């Protein structure tokens, strides 16, 4: 791994009512090297990005996102999810280098 700590963070409500639409927000530390940056030695820094993000709830897809180099460093992704029952959100970030970063959050519905 390159010299950064890809620390995922998520924020979702702890509770909701049945079928409520809740706000889901995620952040992850990542340089998102777009492959065009020139370092101080004049060399092009190779592309190295998060290229996919997914969020599921109890195994069912909320969003699935293809990510390209023009997304900012430390990707911030905010969206809405409908929660039919209590359960767990699962989040994955896929890195160009093959790494997979994961986080989860549970919510009580009722």
């Amino acid at each position, binding site marked *: 791994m390159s010299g950064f700590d890809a620390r995922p963070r998520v924020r979702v409500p702890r509770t909701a009512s049945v079928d409520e639409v809740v706000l889901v927000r995620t*952040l992850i530390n990542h340089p998102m090297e777009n492959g065009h940056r020139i370092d101080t030695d004049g060399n092009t820094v190779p592309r190295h990005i998060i290229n996919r993000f997914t969020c599921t709830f109890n195994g069912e897809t909320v969003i699935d996102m293809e990510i390209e180099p023009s997304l900012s460093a430390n990707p*911030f992704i*905010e969206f809405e999810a409908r929660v039919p029952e209590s359960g767990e959100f699962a989040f994955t970030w896929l890195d160009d280098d093959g790494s997979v970063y994961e986080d989860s959050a549970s919510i009580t519905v009722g």
Partner: protein
Amino acid sequence: MISRREFLQASLAASALLGVQGGWSRVAAQQSLHQDDLLQFDTFGNVSLIHITDIHAQLKPVWFREASVKLGAAPVRGQPPHLVGQDFLAHYGLDATSAMAHALTHDDFVALGQAYGRMGGMDRVATVVNAIRADRPDALLLDGGDTWHGSMTALRSNGQDMVNVMNALGVDAMTSHWEFTLGADRVDEIVSDLPFAFLGQNIFDTDWNEPVYDPYRLFERGGVRVAVIGQAFPYTPIANPSWMFPGLSFGIREQRMQDMVNEVRGQGADLVVVLSHNGFDVDRQMAARVQGIDVVLTGHTHDALPEPLLVGETLLIASGSNGKFVTRLDLDVRDGRMMGFRHKLIPVFADVIEPDADMAALIDAERAPYLNELTEVVGHTDSLLYRRGNFNGTWDDLICNALMVERDAEIALSPGVRWGPSLMPGDAITREDIYSMTAMSYGQVYRREMTGAELHGALEDIAENLFHPDPYFQQGGDMVRVGGLGYRIAVDAPMGERISDMVHLASGEAVDMDRAYMVAGWASVNEGTQGPQIWDVVESYIRQQGRVSVPESTNIEVVTG
């Protein structure tokens, strides 16, 4: 059934009948001013707002010449607040020799200054505020920001002198802009101890995009519920060094403003006041687009208007800068609605309004540690020195000359800020005067080469920030001030086509787009800028000169249409 707008228009007409808002123009025409006349006001309705803004840390009375060129973008040209000089006087029915002509316009500034003297001084402002509170003890005092910056004492005390003065004045709420150039940590340190609300509905953190400061505060006044929503300067991270407050994001955030208006109405607000540092044209557009705002107390652009401007059913108030004016706005709020108003832009003539003794003592105490430094005479001026308007003023030209001479540069660039008082012909130039034009937390003077094309690109970009037809795209300041360089600007042309005929003044030759020119400038928003402080550079230059005389610049040709 008379509509609310008709009520408000009737209020406007009634105040116009009194002469310009409350009858002082008649008094002023007699050229004999008395404190009682300046403060005279027939208390009206049930709520009073007192508005001050853009004091820029000017504790003592100042000369402040208003703009002679304040064009605005094409859609609002020729309308307030873009009227100057004779057009302004004609629009508001002011006598050209009146005190208010001196206070509000540039013509005959030097001659009228002999008759009417300096304006402002926070001890005089305190007298005005106390007098209003004697009439209406629960009047709300609202400060539009740009308060903790703009003087040597504010710079040295990290804004503490102004915090102490404003606390003593009894402010109820403020919003902000230059405050953040003290750094976010210092702002938070001050805010944690502030005995009043520090409001900004449009300030969010850059991580999670969550609000950082209170968006509004509710007050019970005159038997009704008054909501004050704060709007900080939207482009603070662009106009000023964002590295000093790296975790903060601003922006206009019009939708959230609407949400906040709805929220406070939902909480029973009878009157919704926006305390804004948007700048007048942005406020005018916001007032037209956001529903349910009764009053916008405008700031940032330093405009002073002798009567409110009505946008739909919203009153826009413009209270000037540097402590020159205090606005009193009395409102009749009934049944959850603002049904009428009485307004007065009170001119703070320093020789007429008695200083408040307690505030005068506090100001003296704040200045005492620096008094010897402040009062040291560095040189004299034989001409009026001012900075105000879209393009170079004489103070700007003096600073640019200092930059070129002291830093051995061909071209100088000085920021197009609106703050900085004037000096009269014959005045001594003290160190305090120099700081009042330059003091800031990023005053380093850099020296570097720029090609003609880079200079052209910079001027085009800044002109777009100033003359974009949509005020939401106007970024904040006036044109960058230039030394050693002439140009022609077609303000209504599209971006990339405004700036032409750039001339390198020393040689008289057209600027070569490919040649590198040595440029000196200050107030870079880049972190790590190296160089001497601008006030030291200017002081050194004025000492060498002894006496300065700066003619009005003719190096910039302005074309409209």
